[in-house]
């Protein structure tokens, strides 16, 4: 079809990709450091979105300007999601760190059930509408068919977060400690790294990013309920694996590949099989690159 259509699909694929990336980054960081598929990561994202919605609605009534509300709600959501992430780690994962690997996975699944139902009971099962805080930017008027202001914000924030994270991991002391802990925990201890603290920080950062994702998506989509974390979590997990689980750039690349595949699949073929395309791409990529796009081939030296 025509070029406009192609651009539209690309942009919509990138929107999805950016959002998956924000969630997938947390997944991949946690996985990288303790090899845990954190099933409850999606719930942290959901809690971030809920917290933001609650705060934004309360603040909105005070007549504060929308953008200010948005920023404050975002900050509080980030604080709370991080707090949940760290608490969850301390309660449900730390005690099973030395047990077989699947125990932590089951613990994560339990946590996911718990958090979903906690929000369901404490709040509501219904969809709540997220206040419209971001105005349609005037300069976008001409490009309305292609881009909305929330999409622009999603792109921008995702880019900033990604760059910040890369800098953090590559160049800061805590970043190096995270990488060292991921590669060899005993040795990390022996050079004087407090690995408990490092793992907690990993959860904190991962959860914070999930919260950012949660707030952005909710304002883009306009509504949330207690169950939104599940699907988002699965998708982000797929994206992280696609890119090579444990790899930060991989998570981003995987997310974009996934987002674009879904978008083109839906656009040019049929959205009936949107997820099928996503999974077929996944299988194909893994067959040719068994450690994902940017993952390190786990060639154990023999």
């Amino acid at each position, binding site marked *: 079809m025509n070029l406009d259509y192609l651009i539209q699909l690309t942009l919509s694929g990138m929107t999805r990709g950016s959002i998956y990336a924000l969630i997938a980054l947390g997944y991949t960081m946690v996985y990288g450091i303790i090899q845990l598929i954190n099933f409850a990561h999606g719930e942290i994202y959901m809690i971030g979105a*809920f917290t933001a919605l609650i705060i934004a609605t309360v603040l909105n009534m005070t007549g504060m300007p929308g953008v200010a509300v948005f920023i404050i709600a975002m900050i509080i959501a980030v604080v709370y999601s991080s707090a949940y992430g760290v608490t969850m780690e301390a309660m449900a994962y730390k005690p099973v760190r030395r047990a077989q690997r699947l*125990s932590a996975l089951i613990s994560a699944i339990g946590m996911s*059930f718990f958090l979903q139902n906690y929000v369901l009971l404490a709040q509501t099962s219904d969809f709540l509408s997220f206040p419209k805080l971001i105005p349609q930017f005037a300069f976008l008027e001409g490009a309305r068919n292609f881009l909305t202001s929330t999409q622009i914000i999603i792109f921008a924030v995702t880019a900033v977060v990604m760059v910040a994270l890369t800098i953090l991991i590559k160049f800061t002391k805590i970043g190096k400690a995270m990488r060292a802990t991921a590669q060899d925990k005993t040795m990390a201890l022996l050079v004087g790294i407090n690995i408990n603290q490092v793992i907690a920080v990993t959860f904190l950062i991962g959860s914070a990013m999930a919260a950012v994702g949660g707030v952005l998506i909710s304002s883009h989509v306009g509504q949330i309920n207690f169950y939104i974390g599940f699907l988002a979590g699965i998708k982000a997990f797929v994206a992280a694996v696609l890119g090579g689980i444990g790899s930060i750039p991989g998570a981003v690349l995987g997310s974009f590949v996934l987002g674009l595949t879904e978008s083109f699949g839906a656009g040019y073929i049929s959205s009936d099989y949107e997820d099928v395309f996503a999974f077929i791409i996944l299988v194909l990529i893994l067959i040719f690159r068994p450690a994902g796009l940017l993952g390190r081939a786990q060639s154990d030296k023999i």
Partner: protein
Amino acid sequence: MNNAVQELKKSLITSLWFMFLTFPIMVIKVNTVENIVNWRWSNMVFVGVLSFIISYFWRGMLRKKERGDKLFDLSRFMPAKLRDLDLRETLSDKKIARPVLAVLLVAALVFPFAAGMYQTSIMTTALMYIILGLGLNIVIGLGGMLHLGYAAFYAVGAYTYAILHRDFGIGFWVALPLGAILAMLFGMLLGFPVLRLKGDYLAIVTLGFAEIVRIVLENWNDFSSGPSGIANIPRPSFFGMKLSLPNATIYIYMITLALVLFTIFVVRRLENSRLGRAWEAMREDAIASESMGVNITTTKLTAFALGAFWAGMVGVIFAAKTTFVNPASFTLMESVLVLCIIVLGGMGSTTGVIVGALIIVLLPEYLRAFSEYRMLLYGAVLVMMMVFRPNGIIQKVRKRHTFDIKEASSGGSNE
């Protein structure tokens, strides 16, 4: 004394932390439509008190666990003689084990007649999950491959019966082996491309495969009737007779029970065979076992296919018991539940799978008493079981091939 004060202080801090943590979600309730805010301060008090108490006991239990003590020391209530008995050892003594098993079996046989239809029905579900658990255990516990798409094979079995009955009027007993075999073929089909993947990569691909199966069932109307599913699948007939509902319920229970025994029998034999050893070696060290002449591809594939076999079989029972199938029954959550069963029960252990299935299936049913809090508690229980018993409830005692040196000349034993 000082210690106690310390403990209380810690609990207090935890309690304050949770009051902070739950503040927005527990306390504030917004009505986004009417823009009304409802401040529920009493919830905060509630959270504070509850987390204070829980935190106090939680830490106490953790300390016990660290020390390796039993969490609940029942032996205190037992007479001294019993206390000294090692349960596991006692039970591995054939003289004691046989009667115990016999009693359990009789209890299982009598159960549906003593209990009501509801109890029988959920117990049947539990039995079905025992088979699923044992089947998946072949793949995960024995084959060492993390498989998150088990529900797909389950779906294959269920749809085999549903469609064969819908289109050809084929009955339960014919569908039972067909469903199992078809699922097995599917297992092989999936197995080929993915077997060189490791660990979590395998997990995600199997997950993807299961989703593909489900989505195809959802979209392919002519074949599977799409999301609205296939209804009016008959329950198994008893020598051509249609049974009344309570009798049919008991009958399905008995069939499932028989299949559980059959599964246990087969799985045990497989475990203690040349193939079982190859699985174990492969799990321990794939490269070494390959270098010792074990064909990894076929060994993995058999694990995959045999695992799928049982899922297909239970799928047929599922269709017969529920009398209705639609794609919504075969989601990722279903695969995850079966995974929970084997990890919770204790990976690789048959008894563990049985206990795990009983917990995973019956717990939410018995938690019905807590009505809306049921799934919340279910999640919490899962977490707690893992935290306090991280390697599962029953730890696998593997049957070991040993060699009796005394009778070295006369013959080996394979106990």
